[in-house]
Structure formats: structure tokens, C-alpha cells
């Protein structure tokens, strides 16, 4: 861990952006600090300057919905705030179910949604869900303000489209069609509160017995959350039955190329993709 880094606590969002404006990679934001402290301890990152969002928390901690039912979540909203939010419960219940199984309450009380996404770690539970829901994030700097679709956001291990000069200020989750049912399956191979070995987010709409919408995202097995468009295409416009589900699961097995790590070999992770795609689809079919 580097010895001397500067710690600053700007009083306004403007000052935060100022602090980041040099675009220097040695400067980073700290929100909850739960992820940052780990990579600092492991020597993966040594900051020169840390910009705490502590004093701007008030302003960046909110969960709002517009009259259409779109959700807006400020970056300093903690995972615990989201978990307990009636608005999220109403508009995105899949998130609530998933949050119950993220780390433990101690972590959820401090970890923020902004940090969760900006961290760019494939082993997190929210990114695949938000990706499947078509979420986007707002990135702001002293010079620019832009929206980035989550599907374009993750680039690799700890790599996102955020520039070092940018802060992620808000997450936008579009209103989901009422007829869409969704679920998230988290699978761990070590302790049950571990980071996922595999995460599968799925949303499905069936009209007149025919799949009229399907979104399937896997995470943790690959370096970025991956939407299985090929598998989705197999299902669109079809009548979902056991046989088709099996085909979809096998297709997923073929196309997902997992990375081997301490939580599983390539072989095993492929197997788990197959099993969980099957389970997710079976579950949604049952609920549809």
C-alpha cells in the first residue's frame, strides 16, 4: 500500500469534478471504499490522491421515479438503501431479491451503487441485472456530461468506459414492461456469502404462448457481464418448452468462454452456465 496519498473531501459535486479534472489515474473517488480498500491492500492499485464523496453524500443519495416509472438512483445510494426502498421493490423487485445475497449487511450499509458499477468487477451481482434491464449511467466531468448504456460500459477486469476525470453520478433504470418477469440466480462455490462464481439475470415475456421478449445476461464467469444474444435469438418468437430450454442451455454452454480461477475450472463453469440457464428459463416459464 502506498504510504502517502492525499485524502480530500470536497464539499460540492463541482469541487469533486475539479479534483478529478487532471484526468490523472493516480486520483480516484472513494465512495463506500469496500472495493477500493481491497485492491489497495492487494497492491493492485496505489493511489496518489483519494477523493471522498462523504461530504456530497446528501446530494448524491437518492432513489427517485418519474411518472412513467423510470428509476433514477444517485451514485452514493448504498446497497442497503436500495434493498429497503419501496420504490425499487415496486419497479425493480429482482434487484431487491439479489441484494439480499450480496456480501453481508455490514458491507451493504456502506457500499454504494456508484462504486459497485465503477469498480468494473465482473464478480458483482448488480451489473448483470442492470444490464439486462437496459440501464444506463450518467458520467460527469468539468467539461462534459454524458449517458453511457451499461452494455457499452464494461470493458474488462476493472475497466469501464469512465474516464479518470469522470464521476458516475446517476443510474437510470428504464421502466420495465409490466408483462416482463425477471429473476437473478447467484451461484457460489465457496462460502455462501462469497462473490458469485456465476450470476444469471433473465427477463422474459410470453404472449399467446410465444416468447415476445427475452434478455439473458451471465456474469462472473467472464471478464465482463455478457448478454447471450445468440441464445436470446433462438428463443424469440418461439414457444418455450422443455426441449427448447435444453437447446438454449446447450447453446449457452457452447458460446460462453469462461476464465478459470479459484472458484472453478473452465469445464465446471461451462457446466454451471448450462445448468443455470436451464434453471432460470424453467423458473420463468413456470411463473409466466
Amino acid at each position, binding site marked *: 500500500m502506498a*504510504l502517502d496519498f492525499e485524502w480530500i473531501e470536497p464539499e460540492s459535486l463541482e469541487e469533486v469534478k475539479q479534483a478529478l479534472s487532471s484526468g490523472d489515474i493516480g486520483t480516484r473517488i472513494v465512495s463506500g471504499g469496500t472495493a477500493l480498500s481491497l485492491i489497495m491492500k492487494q497492491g493492485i492499485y496505489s493511489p496518489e490522491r483519494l477523493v471522498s464523496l462523504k461530504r456530497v453524500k446528501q446530494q448524491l443519495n437518492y432513489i427517485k421515479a418519474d411518472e412513467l416509472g423510470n428509476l433514477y438512483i444517485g451514485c452514493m445510494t448504498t446497497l442497503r438503501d436500495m434493498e429497503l426502498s419501496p420504490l425499487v421493490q415496486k419497479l425493480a423487485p429482482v434487484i431487491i431479491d439479489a441484494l439480499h445475497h450480496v456480501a*453481508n449487511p455490514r458491507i451493504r450499509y456502506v457500499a454504494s451503487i456508484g462504486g459497485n458499477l465503477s469498480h468494473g468487477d465482473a464478480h458483482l451481482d448488480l451489473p448483470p441485472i442492470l444490464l439486462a434491464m437496459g440501464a444506463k449511467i450518467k458520467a460527469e466531468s468539468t467539461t462534459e456530461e454524458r449517458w453511457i448504456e451499461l452494455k457499452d460500459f464494461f470493458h474488462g477486469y476493472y475497466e469501464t468506459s469512465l474516464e479518470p476525470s469522470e464521476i458516475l453520478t446517476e443510474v437510470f433504470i428504464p421502466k420495465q414492461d409490466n408483462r416482463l418477469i425477471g429473476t437473478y440466480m447467484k451461484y457460489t462455490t465457496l*462460502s455462501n*456469502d462469497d462473490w458469485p462464481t456465476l450470476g444469471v439475470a433473465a427477463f422474459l415475456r410470453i404472449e399467446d404462448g410465444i416468447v415476445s421478449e427475452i434478455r439473458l445476461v451471465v456474469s462472473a464467469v467472464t471478464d465482463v457481464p455478457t448478454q447471450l444474444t445468440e441464445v436470446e435469438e433462438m428463443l424469440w418468437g418461439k414457444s418455450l418448452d422443455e426441449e427448447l430450454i435444453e437447446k438454449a442451455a446447450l447453446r449457452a454452454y457452447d458460446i460462453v468462454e469462461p476464465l478459470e480461477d479459484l472458484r472453478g475450472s473452465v469445464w*465446471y463453469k461451462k457446466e*454451471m452456465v448450462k*445448468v443455470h440457464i436451464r434453471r432460470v428459463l424453467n423458473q420463468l416459464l413456470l411463473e409466466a
Partner: protein
Amino acid sequence: MSALGKSYKRIEGMSKVTGQTEYVMNMEMPGMLHVKLLRSTIPHGLIKHIDVSAAEQIPGVIRVVTGEDLKSMDINPYYGPAFRDQPVLAIDKVRYVGDPVAAVIAEDSKIAEDAVNYIDVEYKELEPVFDVLEAAQPGAPVIHEVIRPAGSFADLKNLLPKENSNICIHYKLRHGDMKKGFEQADHIFEDTFTTPAAVHLPMEQHVAIAYAEPDGRMNIWTANQSPSFVRSEVAHVLKMPESRLRVRVPYLGGGFGTKLYVKIEALVAVLALIVKKPVKLALTMDEVFITLTKHGTVFKMKTGITNDGRIIARHCEVYWDGGAYADIGPRITQKSGFTAAGPYDIPNVHIDSYNVYTNKAPAGAFRGFGVPQLVWAYESQMDIIAEKMGWDPLNFRRKQVLTEGKIHATGQKIVSVGLDKIIEELNTSIGWEEFFKQKQSNGIVKHGSKIRAKGVAIGLKAVLTPSISGAIVTLFADGSASVYCSTVDMGQGSDTIMGQIAAEVLGLPREKVHVVHPDTDVTPYDTITAASRSTFYMGNAIYKAAEEVKNKIFESAAEFFDVKPEHLALQDEKVIVVEKPELSMTLGEVVKEIFHMPAGSIIGQNVYESHYQSPDPETGQSEDIAIFWFPGGTAVEIEVDTETGKIDVLQLISVGDVGKAINPFNVHQQLYGASIMQLGQALFEECIFDYGQMINANMADYKVPTFKDLPAKTETIIVEVPHPEGPFGAKGVGETASFAVQPAIANALYQATGVRVKDMPLTPERVLQALKQTTNRSESTIRDFKEKAKG
């Protein structure tokens, strides 16, 4: 009134949960310096050159010490409980990735940590050896050229190392006639079982402070389970009389074996001598991983049985992966080694137990002291045999389990070992009989991809023998008392129990007895706080010391009342004449009677020493190898997901024979804690090495069980078969519930799926792989739940 058998709350409970408890981690001294270590990055090699100049120039760095500096000091730079094979800092050679090579002493720990990066080491790499079986072969790279027996413990005197080999100990047991035994067998079973290295992970890391007084007298405060050994061993290193060394140990934030013997204490003491200031070394959690592990094992087991259900011969070959330094491995190899054939009455037993050096982090004591690795093998094989022969595995055990008066493979007659009772408790609590009958007649029922089944296993451990515990009990003039003992309260609640024993003898309320923490200037010698031995050994010493106090009180009171001491009793903080209770005096009055003033202390002391007969070096036979034996058993119900291989333990039942539960709540806690700790060992805990480097040496990648991993139902059951020599009949309990968890789960998996996994842990991937390799094998006994519903 009686303090015995009462579930007193932990006396330190409130102070711990309110953050008031003193730990070495929080201790500071004026002018204290901090240490950080540079560790070897290669598994095996010679140190050609170390350049510390850049690090020493960093402001705030006081000194960088290396093995070269040790050479010029008048010290014994090697230490260890069995062999003095571990250098204070690497001297000329490194033996594992993580071996301490240099120590930076600086004004604060951050500076020291930074400076470590500026030390330049040039190595000449040597061929390493990582696999325990390869390392045991002749011709393998030799990790220690010389081996120096330590001679500190009587039980290790007879274990002589093999020169020029990585086998540092070969323990042998020969009982009966192997050849004849196998000839008489109707069936022979041969299996190999393995366990991996794993770690203890106490919440508090290893930490120590050393300070040499101006006249050179050394003080050490350390988070260590064996203060008396630290004193004698560091005295040896420093070439000081033991009286010039003072070791103090406050509460420990957990130990589990990783804080036994000398870990960082010799190093901090040497550094304190060099800089003449207090120095503190606190390891990081990541360093704890590579400081000590649990022995990985390879156990080759061959068993001969007869058609009438008896084990007639058993051949055990156990390899203990000791890593780079022997630590206490030789004792594990012997003392656990001699239990390798299981708690059964087997006429012909042959055990070879080898402790082998490899170029990995050193292995040592881990709650259970090697026994869980052995139980894993023998209890797995019990079920393999029973299944093959079509026997009920529990009956198969009943048929040969060691009962009172039977002769163990070591030659010792078994006394006070309630194994038969444990088996019955397991049977009724998990509902084994019904389960097994149901399975025999209807097969196993599958719910979707999930199958439920039950499994049982038992184990037996011999307590560390010989060993010694000394205690002093002092009664003060106001009728309160203190107990002076070197037992370390590391979370197991020993302060509570030790005080309870003294209170019981003296007829005092528990609150009036204080237990003084280990301070080698004050508290007498004690072998170690480990091996489930303290309640028995130290309990006995305290019991007898308190009796001595009681006798002195009675002597004086008898004279006062003009009765015989036998006519007196202690009750409600008074001495009473039993026949005439109106004749009584308070303890304060007794003191006044003795010293003719209301002051002074009545002192009792005792050094409790075990009897012991050293085993024959060729046959391992001894009629008195352990002062007591303590058994434990586990029953589980699991649910295995046959598509993922993941096991969910639904019920975990631990049964232990503790002799007498002095504090039942504490006993339940010990049984519970040990079983949950083993749950992680059974299902996913494992150190993963890549070319000798432990690649999951951090808590983000090495996971331990959390609340979400707890079984839906856990139960702990106490069996009490009193031991004639135990205090109030008590034996030990700290390790009891650790023995049998792993095989109980594997046996349940076997019942569920017909799949036998012989390697620990039962990770989902390993289980799924085994399931796929054995497809169809067990289909006949597994029926789909849906089918049943339909039919």
C-alpha cells in the same frame, strides 16, 4: 452454592463485546518501533546477496536486519519444538515462498512496509519439491541438510530424524501379526485418502512486542498459546537463563493451533536486542496464511475383514506434508499417527507415519492435531466396506468399537471412553436406523436434482502425554482468591472454567475468584494451551492447589473448634463443623486465626504431571501412552444438488464424551465451534499452491463458513463418562467435534449418490466430476420423487 456444572457466563464477555479487552495488537510502548518482513519469493534457493542500503536510507527506517547479522551475534539462531530447524531469519537459504528473509525496523509500520520494497535479494534457485510423496522419495531435493533435534519435550526424545532425506520422522506401530491377519481375511479393501493444507484464521493475527530492559532482561508480550515454551525456547535462542526472560500473554483473539510454540517471538526478541528499543511485529492476515498451515495428508489404508463383520487386520501408511519446517509435525506424526487405525478393536495393526519436508509454508498444529485427517480416511473406509458387504455401517462400527477394558493398537487398555454411548446418541439424534431401513427397502428419493441422505462417523484422540501443568491458588484475607496459571484464554473460556474449579473446591462464589493471565515471572510452567488438555491437566493442578489451601484452612479451624479436620466443610464462604453447623467461622476469621492479624495469604500450589510410558521405538507399544482418550462423533443430513455438485448440510449433530461438563454452556460452544470450523474444511477450505506459492492467501479468496453456511439444524450432545483422574471426572473438549465432520458428510454423499470421493474438500466441482464419472452406477437405488408421486 456449588460452582460445578453451572453454565457461568464468560467472565470476559462484557469487556470483549464492549471493546475493552486488552490484546497485544492494541498495546503500545513509549518509543516503540515497528517491524515488517521481506519474505522469499522463491520456493527453494540460496541467498547470494542482500542489499539493504536503499531501504536503510529511507527516513524513519532504523535498521534492516538479515540472516548475515544473526551470524555475527552470540545467539542460537535456530528454534523449533521438535527440531531446531527454523532460523530467526533465513540464513543462507530459503525453503518456501514466504520464508522471512529480512526485517525492517522503522518508526512506524507504514514506513517499514514501504522500505521492504527497497531491499534487493539475489538468489540462486535450487530445485524445489512440493508433492509430499515425491519429497519422501530417495533422490528428492533435500530441504534440510542438517537436522537438530530440540530435546525440549520428553515425548519427542525417541524420534530420530533420517539424515539426508526429507522424511524428518518415521513413526512405527506394530501390533499383532500383520501377515497372519491378512491371511485370515475374507476380503481386503485398499483405498487412498487425501486432505489438503488449510489454515486456522483466528480473528487476531500473530503479534508480539519485545523490550529489553537496560540490564538486558527481556520482556515479551505475545499472542501465543504456549508462554512457557516461548520463555524456554527464546531463552535458548538468546543464550539467556530463563529467569531473565519474561513472557506475558493477555487474551488471545483465537489460536486454533497457529499460535503454538515460537512463531515470531524469537525474531522480535533478537530485534529488540539489536535496536535496544521496544519493537512490535504484527503480521497481516495475508502473512498469517503462510506462517502455519494444517498438514495436508496422503493416507494409504489397507483393511482385511472377515465375513462375520470383523476387522482382522489394518495397514496404515500416512504421509504428513510438513512444509518447510517441522514445527510440531513430528508430534502429530506420532501422537495422532498411533490413532490412525481408528477407534476399533483390531487384533493386527501396522502403522507407518511419515513427516515429510516440502517447499511450502510450514504445517503444524490445527484444532484436532491431525486426527481429523485420519478420521477422514478410516471412517470413509468403514462405510466403503459396509456398503460393499451389505452391512449397516453403524452396526459394523458397533461390532468392533473400543469399549471399556479393550486394548488399543498401542497396547494401552481403554478407560473412560464412551464411544458406544456416542454411537447410540448419533443413531437416535439423526434417526439413522429408520433412514437406513427406508433406504434398504425403498431406495433414496430424489427431489428434482436434489437428493437427501444421512451419514455418521466417529473418532478418537489421545490427549498430549506426557505433559505438565503448574498452578498456584492464593486465598486473601478477605476471603477472595486468585488462581495463577499459564493457561491462555484464547476464546475457549478457560478463565471462566479454571476459576470455577477453584471456587468449587473453596466453596466460594465464582465472582470471588480471579484468574491471573500467563506471566512467566508469576504463573508456573504449563506445557501448552492446546490438545484439549487444559481442563484436565490445569484443572487438576488448580483442584489440588485449592485443596492445599482448603487443608490449611481446615487445619487451623480444626484446632480452633477442637475437632478433626474431617469434621469440617466449606460452605457459603465459611468453615463449618458438619455435625454442629452453628459452629462456624468466616474465611477472614481463619486468616486472622493463622496470622494473628487480618492480613496475609494462604497459598496452595501443585504441579500436575502425567504418568507415561514411552512407546517402544520399533513397535510403538506402550501400556500407558495417553493419560486420557476422548471420543467424538458426528451425524449429518445433507442435500446434494446432482447438477451442480453442491452439498448443503441440513443437520449437523456433534456428540462428545467430555467426562464431566464443568460448564455445560462452554462445552456446547466448543462442540459447536469445532464442528462449524470443520464444515468449511469439509466443503471448500483449501490452500491452493502454484509452484509453491499459496495463491489464495487472503480472505477474499480463501473463504470460511459464514452465517449463510450454517446448517438449518445444529445440535450438540454431551456424553459424560467420568475419567477417574480428571478434575470432577472431566476430560477435554476443544477438539472433540472436529474429528468426524468430514467423513460424516462424505458418507452421506455416498448414501445419496453412490459416489465416493476420497479427496478433501468436497467442493461442488469435485463432487460433480465424481458424479459424472459414476453415472448410472447407483440408479437402481435412486428414484425420482415425481415418479413416486405419480405411481
